């Protein structure tokens, strides 16, 4: 009986898929953990980076401004943001770059980013690692490519499998955007903010999920305790 329980515990780590490619550093995210949240100010800064930088090439075709209400935006804010992009609140965030043009310029159609943080091993950490993984460190380059040359049409990235990514560095220097809340727009800051935005885009339900989970678990804990006491009472005459 005890051995069964032990083996059951062993089952779970099994599921962890084999890691591959460069090691991805873990970051502290506000949306992690039992009380995970999306900080509205961070989501908004990330929204600025996404719409002003990423959306030049990438879409988030499952996401519209109206969805921002799940990150705590008011209807007025949502309407104003959509209007400033000449979109309705229910228009999806689709890039102006046509896939065919992208194919011609970059040799690859940029992937839709709606669920990108769920679609790569390393999850949000991976997105952040790629955004901050561009490097002109000569030694690192020589380590990755023996002749120090990145394949044509690709860029050196320490976090990308194979170290050669088709996407040019989207955040090459600070102040790619001007944050309205006065936060200095450093590269790590922008990468962090847009990763939070993309995590929100991928899992807008996360706040509701984690919030509801607490109540479900509380209910189940009481239910199970009462069931246990009932069981003990009913079984008293057998034991």
């Amino acid at each position: 009986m005890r051995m069964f329980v032990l083996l059951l515990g062993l089952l779970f780590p099994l599921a962890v898929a084999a890691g591959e490619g460069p090691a991805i550093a873990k970051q502290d995210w506000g949306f992690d953990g039992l009380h995970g949240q999306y900080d509205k100010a961070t989501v908004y800064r990330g929204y600025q980076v996404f719409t002003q930088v990423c959306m030049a090439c990438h879409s988030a075709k499952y996401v519209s401004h109206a969805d921002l209400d799940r990150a705590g935006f008011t209807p007025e804010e949502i309407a104003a943001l959509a209007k400033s992009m000449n979109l309705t609140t229910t228009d999806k965030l689709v890039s102006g770059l046509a896939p065919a043009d992208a194919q011609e310029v970059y040799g690859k159609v940029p992937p839709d980013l709606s669920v990108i943080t769920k679609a790569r091993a390393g999850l949000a950490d991976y997105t952040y690692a790629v955004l901050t993984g561009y490097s002109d460190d000569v030694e690192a380059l020589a380590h990755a490519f023996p002749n120090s040359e990145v394949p044509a049409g690709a860029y050196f990235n320490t976090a990308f499998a194979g170290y050669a990514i088709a996407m040019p560095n989207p955040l090459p220097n600070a102040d790619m955007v001007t944050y309205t809340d006065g936060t200095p727009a450093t590269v790590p800051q922008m990468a962090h903010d847009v990763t939070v935005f993309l995590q929100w885009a991928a899992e807008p339900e996360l706040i509701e999920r984690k919030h509801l989970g607490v109540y479900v678990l509380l209910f189940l804990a009481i239910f199970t305790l009462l069931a246990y006491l009932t069981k003990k009472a009913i079984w008293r005459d057998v034991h």
Partner: protein
Amino acid sequence: MASLKPKAVEQNITRNPLKWFDDRLPLVSLINNSVGRNFPAPKNLNYMWNFGSLAGIALVIQILTGLFLAMHYKADVALAFDSVQHIMRNVQWGWLIRNLHMVGASFFFIVVYVHMARGLYYGSYKSPREVLWGIGVIIFLIMMATAFMGYVLPWGQMSYWGATVITNLLSVIPFVGDEVVVWIWGGYSVGDPTLTRFYALHFLLPFVIVGIVILHIWALHEHKSNNPTGLDLQDEKDFIPFHPYYTVKDIFGLGVYLIAFALMVFYAPDYLGHTDNYIPANPLVTPAHIVPEWYFLPFYAILRAIPIKELGVVAMFGSILILFVLPWLDSSRVRSARYRPLYRSLYWVFLLNFLVLGWVGSKPPEGIYVLIARFATAYYFLFFALLPVVARVEKTRKLPKTIDEA
């Protein structure tokens, strides 16, 4: 022949409506005889015996959540991936229903694996419960087919490539293999016809499972539950009525189960899944490693452990089909591993070995992993091959006379 003498039939519907109804259609009696006061169960069952009813509940959860998903899902290669996102984002409670279904599939397998491991340990497959066990193996097989087809429906990269790899295995069937594969696909590759038929079957098979589960319970009632001692119980004082004793014990077990389930559903719904399945299916891009869902990994490891494809497929299916003949392979007259020291050791190695197979199944088939997979596969079959010998040479412990003595 049953007596045709009329029973004392309640004639007044207002005096005792329940009895009145039961005298006309004995539904209440049926429930009472199946899981109620009239079903005697051994009084010494431990918590490993909770997993049978848990499996039933897991099945019901899958059917209910699946029904609501089916109301919003679109089985069309152009729409399937989008419709899953639609469920996650726009459908009221859609994310919850999908998480329950997704995590529920994994938990269903955990429960069934424990249920089977319990049967294996306490010799529940032995006479007179061979048919009960065999029906269980059939349920397991249909469950695997159902889960496999369900994983194809979101139409992500692993859906597509998993379906391609697994259906391709049937090409090893002599003479007609390639034709069979094309017939199953409904075309020359996995595509829209494959998706729509998998959807239809994924909806149908759970109800087939329900039907077979009824047979499983029927067979259980013929000889009642086995028990940790494995003794044949004759004495009335060894039994207690299923209700309220085991109903309340199962409800407590259910509570514990639901806590673990809720933790995954609300805090790690994608933990047991694969990130590649959030990339829409693309026939032109093959993922670096195609891996099935975790619950198939031990069998996937057996498949890949054998260098000849045909033999690998035979070994993979054989590793499950061999369970059908287990009652005849193991001819020991002692049921419970408690009194079988040799079998008991081999059993724990077998279980550990099964986990090793699962682990190695998640690794790329290269280097040391191939070697580990081969040894683990060899032991998997060796265990069954040894059973007739074990039964002959094993010195079993002295069996207690009664369960009170145990």
